[in-house]
């Protein structure tokens, strides 16, 4: 995959080791002194991203597509430019396959409504996994209930990895849809997505991959992956809130009816009936999140300039460091696979200390730690816990922040001793 190198830190070559100190200067929030260990929840956003949004607001703020004056043309060009950036970033075949949404959740719901309602019928099988996020479970539960379809969940083994034997068995039953996340947000497990997609396609299923946790953290090539749909959120990859992506293979998107309807997704509206716009605009009804899409474009530039291999390498280094440091803590249980097979996410439990209490104590040290079910209640039920504590990392994470986390854990153990 060739990467654009716009917006890069000066002098740096893509896929050189990250210069974290330089990167951190792009994030004004670190001046507050926080150790931010919740990037799997939402990332921080660099000045380049907020700057791109501000530039829109202050220089060419206007609506897109509809207007005949220059600032609106500028807005339209910038808005559409993000599509090409995203296309290149995930190596889609065409910008027609890149649909803007609010985020992963809307992307998946779009598929559940516009593809699902047309293609899932009574008795059909949908295969999900126990590692999935609620956003990749509940839309299918609702669809299945509506249609009389049913859902099977691929279980995990004791290492927190999907049971491929079970997955193979389920594929034998000819599922109509297979949907799973490439990376689990709750445990960090990286699933063998390419093999899984290939097997599912061979079994005749339509395949949706939830890329919320993979797109920000490792190189993604949707054509190599071979899936039909791929969903992700801008706010987890340095972009602003309010903008995300649905990638869909063109044939499937063409065959789908619109999801939402209104301004901009039509060609002609008459009392007698309406014709819809071409892809991808057929799926983008009403005024879109213009500033946010432009901000997302700046985020893609930023990541592309770093190089996604370098991003992954940095996170792996931090994850290994954290894994080791946490393994040394007494009474601490780590969930999930070893660092090489997981993304920059470490989920754990402390004996006798509820994750919420740990998070509160960490917060007193300005360590931002997530405690809860991570929108993965079925997984929590499977693990037999109500919640875990989770630290997650990104391009700006330093080992020193992991040390601060370990300090907070020891402090909590002192208090609860």
């Amino acid at each position, binding site marked *: 995959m060739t990467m654009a190198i716009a917006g890069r830190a000066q002098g740096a070559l893509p896929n050189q080791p990250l210069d974290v100190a330089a990167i951190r200067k792009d994030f004004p929030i670190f001046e507050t002194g926080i150790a931010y260990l919740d990037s799997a929840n939402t990332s921080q956003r660099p000045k380049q991203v907020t700057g791109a949004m501000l530039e829109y607001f202050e220089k060419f703020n206007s609506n897109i597509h509809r207007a005949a004056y220059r600032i609106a043309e500028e807005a339209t060009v910038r808005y559409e430019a993000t599509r090409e950036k995203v296309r290149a970033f995930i190596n889609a075949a065409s910008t027609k396959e890149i649909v803007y949404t609010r985020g992963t959740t809307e992307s998946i719901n779009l598929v559940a409504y516009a593809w699902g309602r047309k293609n899932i019928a009574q008795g059909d099988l949908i295969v999900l996994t126990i590692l999935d996020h609620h956003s990749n479970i509940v839309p299918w539960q609702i669809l299945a209930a509506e249609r009389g379809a049913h859902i099977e969940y691929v279980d995990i083994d004791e290492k927190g990895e999907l049971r491929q034997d079970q997955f193979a068995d389920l594929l034998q039953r000819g599922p109509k849809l297979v949907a799973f996340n490439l990376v689990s947000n709750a445990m960090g497990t990286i699933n063998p997505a390419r093999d899984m997609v290939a097997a599912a396609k061979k079994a005749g299923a339509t395949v949706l991959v939830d890329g919320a946790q993979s797109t920000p953290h490792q190189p993604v090539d949707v054509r190599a992956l071979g899936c039909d749909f791929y969903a992700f959120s801008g706010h987890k990859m340095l972009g602003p809130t309010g903008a995300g992506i649905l990638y869909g293979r063109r044939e499937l998107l063409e065959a789908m009816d619109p999801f939402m309807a209104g301004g901009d997704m039509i060609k002609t509206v008459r009392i007698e009936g309406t014709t819809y716009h071409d892809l991808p605009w057929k799926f983008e009804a009403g005024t879109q999140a213009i500033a946010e899409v432009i901000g997302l474009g700046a985020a893609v530039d930023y990541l592309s300039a770093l190089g996604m291999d370098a991003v992954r390498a940095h996170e792996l280094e931090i994850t290994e460091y954290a894994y080791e440091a946490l393994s040394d803590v007494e009474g601490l249980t780590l969930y999930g696979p070893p660092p090489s097979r997981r993304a920059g996410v470490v989920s754990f439990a402390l004996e006798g200390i*509820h994750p*919420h*209490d740990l998070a*509160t*104590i960490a917060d*007193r040290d300005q360590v931002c730690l997530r405690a809860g*079910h991570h929108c993965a209640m079925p997984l929590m039920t499977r693990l037999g816990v*109500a919640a875990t504590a989770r630290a997650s990392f990104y391009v700006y994470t330093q080992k020193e922040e992991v040390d601060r986390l370990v300090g907070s854990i020891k402090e909590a153990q002192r*208090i609860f001793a």
Partner: protein
Amino acid sequence: MSAAADDQFYREYILDHYKNPRNYGRLEHPDITHEEDNPLCGDVVGMDFRVEDGVISDIRFHGRGCAISQASASLLTERLKGLSLDEAKKINKDDVLGELGIDISPARIKCALLSLKVLKVGAYGLAGDDEE
């Protein structure tokens, strides 16, 4: 680091109620029993009541969760035992927070009030209001 602040938050008696919960367990054939959870963090609190002549003659709670939710439940059962249902009805949010005696942040307030919700919904059938 602000160990003093932590200790202030996790005061001795809260930690004590968490580690040695009072009235913990179940009643057989309770007159009232109700359970609530806080789905956001997975805290669960349930209470069993024995009611004689309109008075709470015995009470047990069970559940799991953070120090705040469990200590708060333990404290509440201590207060409830021997109270008439009418008196129990008057217990409000401020009473429960006052009893905890610490500064509860918005994110933890649901933990602190989970046991009150069990009381309200279980004993009086009041709709739980998540806005509080």
